[in-house]
């Protein structure tokens, strides 16, 4: 530790601490422009100049990068320093008169106007002030080393390699983040297939996924984290006091032995960009239901405010039902939840904005407890209901209106007329569809799918939670589109079924089984792949196949396929079936 005296105040700091830090400790403000905690001091703006007195010698140094020594005396606000700061600010002001950070700093330091003319006067509000923060952050933090200064003197500027867009740029946005003037902007040119943080607003690569996340800890998105791109940054690790950041953590596969499994794998949202007529992914301010849910979320990208891309509140919002569902080209089934969440959207938009709200529906299906009442309430709130599936969403011609808002075209089937409704924002009620990997899951658990692509229950009315495979249960949207109350009820029922077997401690199986007669099986392995319950194993040392009695359901698939007739369905032997046929034919 060394002791230094700053403006008469003595502070004890580590040797080599920059004066700026020591002054901070002493509670003394030193103006800075190019400085950032993120990277090593750069000392280019000279605004932090201070007087260092050592014995009889006095020197002007930059506080940000001058290391302190024992017994140093520092003046941060002497007449000479004030004069230097003013000159610097006047010079900056003469070149960038309209940049907010410059004029604010000038005002703070008592500079009202510049006495200097400038050869390179830049009137822009977001002009580059050559502070170099972007260059430093790109080099030191991101380690992408894309941005650099080029040319000298008044021609000096920040450039990308060869002045062109570079594929080495990882589009992390760090430069835009540190730019004090807003000169660097992040522009999303193509929303299609991008994550919500691109389409809705900024989200950091390290975040708590949702407020309800369990455990509620932040996770790193390795796809957008700078460290996983360049090996740089690691800012989170530097600031995390308990040192909980672990970049080496990987997805783990945990094997759990279980006698029963409840599948609640959920659903995927229909990709509305497949229906180009609605403009999702192509037109600004056309949102999917999940996007809009994020917008409405108080911890979401807009903090729960209903705003358009330009930050303004919409004057009107159109909510389009049945996007991809009740549609023979996509999903013929009804997704069940959309009517009600569309009403909820309308209610929340009505609550938070003054926008006019239009609902474009085929049929209103307010089927659940309290739902019809909610629908009536919404009608009282003044929502406009238009019965007719919207045909398309187009951009209103800029020439006529100039605001680039949207136009919904549809046939209003109640008045039998074609209508065009201008709106600022469109929300699509996307269909619920089976998970993209449902086929793989189905195979793992040897269960079936119904024609709509969701898991098939054992019986649609009497047994909606279990499947044809004993011990495998299904609940929620994995079984078919359903709302939260139905999902909770189904999952509860499945849990009760599971517990009842656990409590009993043993499993009953039906007597109808297939069995392989070892005497006749030659191990041709015809049956091995067929069993929908994976009950057939090939015994390598005996070179024959064998059926697991507990897994077998007696479906008979293998019995029919066995070319040696070595497999017999108990109770359905060939002899029995032929006798039945003969009996039938004898009549």
């Amino acid at each position, binding site marked *: 530790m060394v002791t230094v005296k700053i403006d008469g105040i003595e502070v004890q700091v580590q040797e080599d601490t920059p004066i700026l830090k020591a002054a901070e400790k002493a509670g003394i403000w030193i103006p800075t422009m190019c400085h950032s905690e993120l990277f090593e001091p750069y000392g280019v703006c000279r605004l932090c100049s201070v007087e260092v007195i050592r014995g009889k010698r006095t020197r002007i140094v930059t506080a940000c990068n001058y290391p302190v020594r024992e017994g140093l005396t520092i003046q941060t606000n002497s007449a000479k320093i004030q004069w230097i700061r003013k000159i610097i600010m006047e010079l900056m002001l003469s070149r960038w008169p309209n940049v907010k950070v410059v004029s604010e700093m000038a005002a703070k330091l008592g500079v009202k106007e510049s006495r200097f003319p400038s050869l390179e006067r830049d009137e822009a509000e977001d002009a580059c002030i050559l502070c170099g923060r972007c260059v430093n952050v790109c080099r030191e933090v991101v380690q992408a080393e894309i941005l650099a200064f080029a040319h000298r003197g008044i021609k000096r500027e920040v450039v990308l390699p060869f002045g062109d867009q570079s594929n080495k740029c990882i589009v992390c946005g760090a430069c835009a983040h540190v730019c004090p003037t807003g000169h660097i902007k992040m522009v999303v040119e193509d929303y299609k297939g991008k994550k919500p943080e691109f389409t809705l607003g900024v989200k950091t690569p390290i975040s708590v996924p949702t407020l309800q996340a369990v455990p509620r800890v932040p996770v790193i998105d390795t796809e957008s984290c700078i460290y996983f791109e360049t090996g740089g940054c690691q800012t989170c690790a530097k600031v995390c006091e308990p040192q909980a950041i672990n970049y080496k953590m990987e997805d783990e596969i945990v094997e759990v032995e279980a006698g029963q499994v409840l599948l609640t794998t959920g659903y995927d949202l229909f990709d509305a960009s497949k229906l180009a007529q609605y403009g999702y992914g192509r037109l600004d301010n056309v949102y999917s239901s999940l996007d809009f849910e994020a917008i409405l979320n108080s911890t979401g990208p807009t903090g729960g405010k209903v705003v358009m891309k330009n930050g303004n509140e919409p004057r009107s919002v159109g909510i389009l039902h049945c996007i991809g569902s009740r549609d023979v080209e996509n999903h013929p089934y009804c997704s069940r939840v959309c009517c009600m969440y569309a009403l909820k959207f309308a209610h929340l938009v009505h609550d938070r904005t003054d926008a006019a709200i239009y609902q474009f529906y085929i049929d209103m299906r307010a089927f659940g407890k309290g739902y019809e009442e909610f629908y009536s309430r919404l009608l009282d709130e003044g929502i406009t209901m238009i019965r007719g599936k919207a045909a398309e969403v187009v951009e209103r011609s800029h020439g006529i209106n100039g605001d680039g808002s949207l136009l919904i075209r549809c046939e209003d089937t109640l008045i039998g007329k074609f209508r065009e409704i201008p709106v600022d924002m469109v929300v699509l009620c996307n269909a619920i569809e089976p998970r993209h990997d449902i086929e793989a899951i189905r195979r793992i658990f040897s269960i079936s799918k119904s024609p709509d692509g969701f898991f098939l229950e054992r019986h649609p009315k009497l047994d909606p939670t279990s499947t044809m495979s004993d011990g495998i249960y299904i609940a929620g949207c994995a079984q078919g589109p359903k709302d939260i109350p139905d999902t909770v009820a189904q999952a509860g029922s499945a849990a009760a079924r599971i517990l009842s077997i656990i409590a009993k401690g043993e499993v009953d199986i039906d007597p109808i089984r297939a069995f392989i007669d070892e005497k*006749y099986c030659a*191990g041709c392995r015809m049956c091995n792949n067929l069993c929908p319950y994976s009950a057939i194993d*090939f015994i390598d040392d005996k070179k024959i196949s064998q059926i697991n009695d507990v897994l077998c359901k007696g479906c008979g698939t293998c019995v029919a*396929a066995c*070319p*040696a007739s070595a497999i017999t369905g108990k109770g359905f032997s060939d002899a029995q079936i*032929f006798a039945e046929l003969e009996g039938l034919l004898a009549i």
Partner: protein
Amino acid sequence: MAKPKLALYWASSCGGCEIAVLDIQEKILDVANAFDIVFWPVAMDFKYDDVRKMEDKSIDLCLFNGAIRNSENAELAHLLRAKSKALVAFGSCAHEGCIPALANLTTKDAILKWVYKDSPSTVSNNGAVYPQTHTKMPEGEIEIPEMWETVKSLDQVIDVDYYVPGCPPQPFQIWNVIEYILSGKPLPPKGSVLGADEKTCCDECPRERKEKKIKKFFRPYEILSNPNECLLDQGIICMGPATRSGCGALCTKANMPCRGCYGAPPNVVDQGAKMVSALSSVVDSQDPNEIDEILNQIVDPLGTFYRFSMAHSILKRVDKI
């Protein structure tokens, strides 16, 4: 003690079964020593009348090969049945119809029309001349056997005691049967299949089998098959899985698929249907059009799956004789 009497007869067949008997090589001398051969038209000069004159049940063992295709085949079958203690349906034709029974896929009229009229090698100046059962000639009326509408296996015409499958039966299996009978051990129960085993051809096949999934069917000439891998796994239709074992997997060891000559395995009612059922289970596709495409690659399904078992199959037509 008199030697047991042995009869061999050749009905509708190619004669390969007779050759197979000779293929037991020098052991044929043991057969000649052990048996008194009383009837073997292909090798020695016997007349049907000689048989007619024998006492009933005087022949101890009769090996009858060939399907029953015409009235002469049937007459001899009945005759030998009457004269024999143990009558064996010998070889695939007698066992379950074999190649001659593929004629059951068409009609007698169509066969005669082709052979005596339409086939390119038939030259006739005065229209088609069809064979007649009775023809008046200057010397008197002559009679030839009548061809049947339907080819039958031996057991569809007479009562058969035992079966020896194969096209032809393998010599070592023939010798096993003869040796067994000569040993004087108690005879197996009536209706038994002799000279064969109870599993399927796969049991004897040395090739390595995997879980079956077939995306494309090949005919043997269309593919260079891996000699160590199951032919069916490679897409070559091999009847092995639906064929009784006993031949020693002769064909698959020679890199050719099993054709199914040893007939249906013990529990199988219809060999061809079983194979169709098995193959359709392992076609590797979920798309109906693709499945059709894959199945269309099978050339001549009936001739492939029922090559040897047509007469015994459950595919039947209304019988006409």
